[in-house]
């Protein structure tokens, strides 16, 4: 079967001498490589039943909370917190974690690092598909809410920043979690601390003052506060603010988010492993 493909032999093209290698812009090359890798990652996500479920199906479920909020801002704001939580935890955090561990186990990461692709591009390509899913889900949430009488986001830039910064932070948490996750199955256990920390944050608005105060310093509480003020113009006391006022309300949670992000990135940088432990 193979013999006909063998002859005639292709003569290998001579190596390209350095002088005639096309000069390209490093930035464009980086984008091209990230796109190629992200595409392959999307393909791989769709070929694995569990990642498909977590990355594309689970984040859609809490959208019913928006649909059934019936135009009530309070109910919708609580629902939107869950939408954001699931959109960041599953398509971003858990997917990045399980793909990273799988690819590391398969020695794909080590193999990739022998080539032209940069480490940051490898990480970006793992995070991009989930980040796009999260952004789309958050956009769909708004689209579902509009006909029921929910407002268009008071501060759209802040709304976008919330989703993207959240995705960045959870990606860093995933890289860190991967450092103590041996196999993809193991991720179900090792991911628990971060998932619990994230879930606890969304409880803040429904808890007594003292507990809420403590929880407000968790990353997900900050993200929840941000989506409330960015979408619904709600401040932490339940009052409403406009575009200008929303920036002021966003100060504390943005700082909290920044601190957690710096911490997560630092942890990730220090613990990142590209090949299985020997």
């Amino acid at each position: 079967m193979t013999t006909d493909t063998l002859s005639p032999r292709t003569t290998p093209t001579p190596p390209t001498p350095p002088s005639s290698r096309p000069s390209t812009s490093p930035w464009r090359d980086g984008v091209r490589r990230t796109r190629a890798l992200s595409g392959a990652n999307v393909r791989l996500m769709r070929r694995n039943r569990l990642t498909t479920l977590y990355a594309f199906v689970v984040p859609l479920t809490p959208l019913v909370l928006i649909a059934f909020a019936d135009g009530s801002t309070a109910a919708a704001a609580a629902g939107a917190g869950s939408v954001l939580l699931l959109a960041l935890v599953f398509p971003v955090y858990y997917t990045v974690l399980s793909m990273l561990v799988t690819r590391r186990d398969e020695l794909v990461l080590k193999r990739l690092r022998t080539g032209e692709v940069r480490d940051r591009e490898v990480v970006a390509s793992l995070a991009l598909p989930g980040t796009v899913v999260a952004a789309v889900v958050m956009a769909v949430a708004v689209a579902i809410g509009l006909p029921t009488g929910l407002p268009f986001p008071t501060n759209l830039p802040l709304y976008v920043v919330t989703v993207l910064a959240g995705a960045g932070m959870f990606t860093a948490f995933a890289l860190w979690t991967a450092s103590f996750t041996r196999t993809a199955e193991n991720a179900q256990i090792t991911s628990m601390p971060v998932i619990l920390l994230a879930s606890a944050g969304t409880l803040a608005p429904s808890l007594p003052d003292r507990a809420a105060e403590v929880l407000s310093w968790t990353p997900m509480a900050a993200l929840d506060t941000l989506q409330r003020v960015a979408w619904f113009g709600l401040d932490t006391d339940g009052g409403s603010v406009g575009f200008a006022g929303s920036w002021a309300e966003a100060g504390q949670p943005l700082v909290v988010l920044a601190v957690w992000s710096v911490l997560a990135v630092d942890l990730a940088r220090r613990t990142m492993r590209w090949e299985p432990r020997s």
Partner: protein
Amino acid sequence: MTDVMETSCDGVLLQPLRPGDAGAMSTTTLPHTPSPLGSDTGAAVRLNELRRTYGTGADAYEAVRGLDLEVERGSVLALLGVNGAGKTSTLEVVEGLAPATSGSVEVLGLDPVEDRAAVRRRTGVLLQHSGFAADLTVTETVELWAGLVTDARPVEEALAEVDLGGRADVAVRDLSGGEQRRLDLACSLLGRPELVMLDEPTTGLDPESRRRVWALLQRLRDAGTTILLTTHYLEEAEVLADRIAIMAAGRVVREGTPDELAASLPATISFTTPRGPDGPVVVPPLGAGRRTDRDRTVVETDDLQVTLTSLLTWAAHEGIRLEALDARQATLESVFLDVARVAADAGETHPSTYPASQPEDLR
């Protein structure tokens, strides 16, 4: 192997020490200023006093211990050595995957870490263990790699070259080990590299596929590609390599063309020890080493022709018939085993005591 005829065979080639290099211990002594593109001339790979240590403190293990090596442009160099000699550890530094602990590394006139982007565009790497996403097909895998290199070759062409054209739509998880290896090789060669570094490219391949890979590598070499490879198949080194370097305990301890290496050990003549009326006949000294091995007499010599002539002249004169007469040059295998034996004798405890140069008493 024909071109070695022109090379002088006197003496044993060791590490290519350049004048003034003796005793140079640090990287900073090299007066090299890399140009952004690297140079088109000079050695493709130049390693000087290379060291690589794994771990730190009490767990530290030095896998590469002051290694010198040069690979000429357009040539094939095979790196041999027993398991754990440090071949992979060395290659990973050349590939830019790991920094050298000390010593200097020059790849195409550039620093593989500092000048990463420029070097990577011009090199192709095959790791000892392949790394693939099991759920992608063969074509998808090569297409992915095509998106990761600058100026990739056509995917079909790359697959045809490693005889995988007929397996294009098969998932990587369903490929045989040898097919995966060839797929990996196709990815390594996708960017038309000037220098390829192949860590055991044919391990796990059947003899037929191995020969096809050899043919492919020979064609690459003929087209001007520099190849640095490791292998445990001595025949592979003999067939492909212009030069062979044998490593032991983190250093290159023998280096030369296949013929030079073979000439570094004495040739042997052996025959069934003839019996006269008074018992075994003792062969005269003949100016060469002599010993008996059970019922055979073994003569070791640095000059096979002269010794053999004297032996045959003596036998004719004495009217003795030499049964099962055998005369042979040392083989690469005997050189390899000699290195392995000396390294093992030097022991794990004092690996650094391995003689860095050929013992003089062979002369």
